[in-house]
């Protein structure tokens, strides 16, 4: 590939023309092993907003937001980080069994989440609290899973947002199949066509399911966008141990375009995701986006990152923080003042407090509910066991149990 950002266009619309004439946004080293994290430099990626908060142009991607829209994006970033912090705090206080933090990945999630059209369908992993926020879903919804009061279930079709998926990579096939259904239904090819997005991590891309999803999506030209948040680690294993070439480059081998974006840049993430979703909804097939970012927190609250990475690496990434750069941008452009930021902080705190109170008062599950939804048509075995279960528990009634 000539430049570092896109795989060849697999389909009709013409080779690598979108980028072939222009230079990538940043120089790119010859990438056999991608060790840019270890040596602290960024690889070539689409960037529209520098870590210092300066807008830069890109030959292929641009955004055209109103002042209000810029502020709204920043508001999203601030609120999802604040809610995430509350998740971590609740876990530390024993109110959640576990929490998977999105800290550091806000821009990747808000940029891609805000690029979705109403009719688009989302297949998240277990970390996409920011995307969930963009779907106007009550942020408390995943807390049932993390608190252990339920299995994290909801009607995915109603919310256009699938349940969190814990088995790594499984959802990428579901997304692909859903997108095949969209195509069978003839719901693509127009501006209001449907697109599907599947989230997964840099570790997940090793998984067989994800590779099979790529094969199926390509074979059926399914309207699905694969959104890989390369946060540099699969728990303790750094991406360069699993992958010897940049992740986005894999797309070309499967026959669809891939692009790497600065995942800490909400504007660039929005632009590349919007582009990929629009192509999918217009029937131009799947796409892969590698959002290059960093997981600032532990893998989950049970993890201890000091065992496998250096503080200095975290410090280097902190300088590229997705929130700070957007704040700097708003300040430099005169789009927001101190009052605005103060009020936003207060608003985020209110959201967090409200969330905390509601999490603490989540109802305890009814024990016999474990038998309720096993089969749509019921089962005599389940009925028998439910009856035994109830009789057994009734036998303790009044005995102080």
């Amino acid at each position, binding site marked *: 590939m000539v430049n570092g950002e896109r795989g060849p266009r697999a389909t009709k619309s013409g080779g690598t023309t979108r980028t072939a004439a222009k230079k990538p946004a940043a120089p790119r080293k010859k990438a056999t092993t991608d060790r840019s994290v270890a040596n602290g430099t960024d690889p070539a990626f689409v960037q529209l907003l520098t870590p210092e908060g300066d807008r830069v142009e890109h030959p292929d991607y641009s955004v055209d937001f109103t002042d209000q829209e810029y502020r709204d994006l920043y508001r999203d970033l601030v609120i999802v980080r604040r809610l995430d912090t509350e998740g971590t705090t609740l876990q530390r206080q024993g109110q959640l069994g576990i929490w998977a933090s999105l800290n550091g990945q806000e821009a990747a999630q808000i940029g891609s989440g805000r690029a979705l059209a109403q009719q688009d369908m989302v297949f998240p992993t277990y970390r996409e609290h920011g995307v969930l926020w963009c779907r106007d879903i009550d942020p408390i919804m995943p807390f049932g899973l993390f608190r*252990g*009061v339920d299995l*994290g279930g909801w009607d995915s079709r109603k919310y256009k947002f699938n349940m969190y998926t814990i*088995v790594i990579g499984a959802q990428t096939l579901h997304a692909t199949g859903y997108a095949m259904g969209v195509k069978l239904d003839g719901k693509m090819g127009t501006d209001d066509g449907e697109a599907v997005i599947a989230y997964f991590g840099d570790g997940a891309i090793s998984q*067989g399911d994800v590779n099979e999803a790529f094969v199926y999506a390509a074979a059926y030209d399914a309207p699905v966008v694969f959104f890989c948040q390369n946060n540099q680690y699969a728990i303790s294993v750094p991406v360069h141990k699993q992958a010897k070439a940049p992740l986005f480059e894999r797309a070309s081998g499967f026959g669809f375009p891939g692009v790497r974006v600065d995942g800490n840049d909400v504007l660039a993430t929005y632009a590349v995701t919007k582009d990929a979703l629009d192509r999918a909804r217009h029937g131009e097939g799947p796409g892969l986006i590698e959002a290059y970012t960093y997981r600032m927190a532990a893998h989950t609250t*049970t993890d201890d990152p000091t065992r496998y990475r250096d503080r200095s690496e975290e410090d280097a990434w902190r300088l590229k923080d997705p929130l700070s750069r957007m704040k700097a941008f708003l300040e430099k452009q005169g789009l927001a003042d101190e009052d605005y930021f103060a009020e936003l902080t207060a608003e985020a705190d209110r959201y967090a407090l409200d969330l905390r109170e509601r999490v603490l008062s989540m109802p305890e599950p009814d024990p016999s509910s*474990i038998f309720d939804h*096993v089969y749509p048509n019921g089962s005599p075995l389940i009925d028998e066991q439910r009856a035994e279960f109830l009789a057994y528990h009734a036998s303790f009634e009044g005995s102080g149990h």
Partner: protein
Amino acid sequence: MSQTSTIGKAINLGLRRALEDDPKVVLMGEDIGRLGGVFRVTDALQKDFGEDRVIDTPLAESGIVGTAVGLAMRGYRPVCEIQFDGFVYPAFDQIVCQVAKMHNRSLGTIPMPIVIRIPWGGGIGAVEHHSESPEAYFCHTAGLKVLAPSNPNDAYWMIQQAIASDDPIIFFEPKRRYHEKGEIDTDLGLAGAYPLHASRVARPGSDVTVVAYGPMVRTCLDAAVAAEADGRSLEVIDMRTLSPLDMGPVYESVRRTGRLVIAHEAPGNVGLGAEIATRVMQECFYSLEAPVLRVTGYDTPYPQSRLEEEFLPDLDRVLDAVDRTFAY
């Protein structure tokens, strides 16, 4: 030499010794190297034996087991770690279709000396897929052997015996008991230690036989203590080996007690309890004073953590079953 160790540490020590004793032993799995595994069972092994022998694999379970097959063909003895029970399924095809059948299909020429370690079972307050009991699938597969140690000394020796064995072995580790302590005798030697595929009376008794394995052994031993206060004597048998089953001590016990309760976390339907009960019925029919009873998980998906106490067989449910065997 005798030393006190947790179950997790005992496996760690056993793995260390296997790595020292045989240069062909390699460990492979997700996050087992620098991190030492999410349960720290492989703690410090990569530091001491290097990245070639303690391998942080890519995140792909079919890959872990499939490449272990090739390594085994090449003369290595891979010890695979599956991070949690619920994540073994991507490797299921490799285990059932390849690992289990290779020796048979190669006319006995190619053994698969592979051990697949699986932290297993519930009771740790986890989210879904982290608390499963899939042992029956593997016991049902010809060509595999299946083990489940319940205490530190067994954990220490059984992991080494499993690695030394040419049979492919699924090695279930009772994850909620990883921190339980006991004595390990490091001088026994592979041959001197209790035989690998043998069950054992964990606590002698005379009134009722209680059969368990893995994490449920502790529960049943506790139940035996509680029952003693009520004047009932429970004989607890730790199966240790789930495939093949070693039924001898069970028959011998049931012939004395006439009563049998089997406890496991896995759902009851077509579980190990059904197999054990059938064999006892065939061999000890005239000794039985009561029907064989099972205390198991329910035939539902493993529930959310707030309900797992209701799902997992506990001391009360074991004692309730014991009571019921005396009602006949």
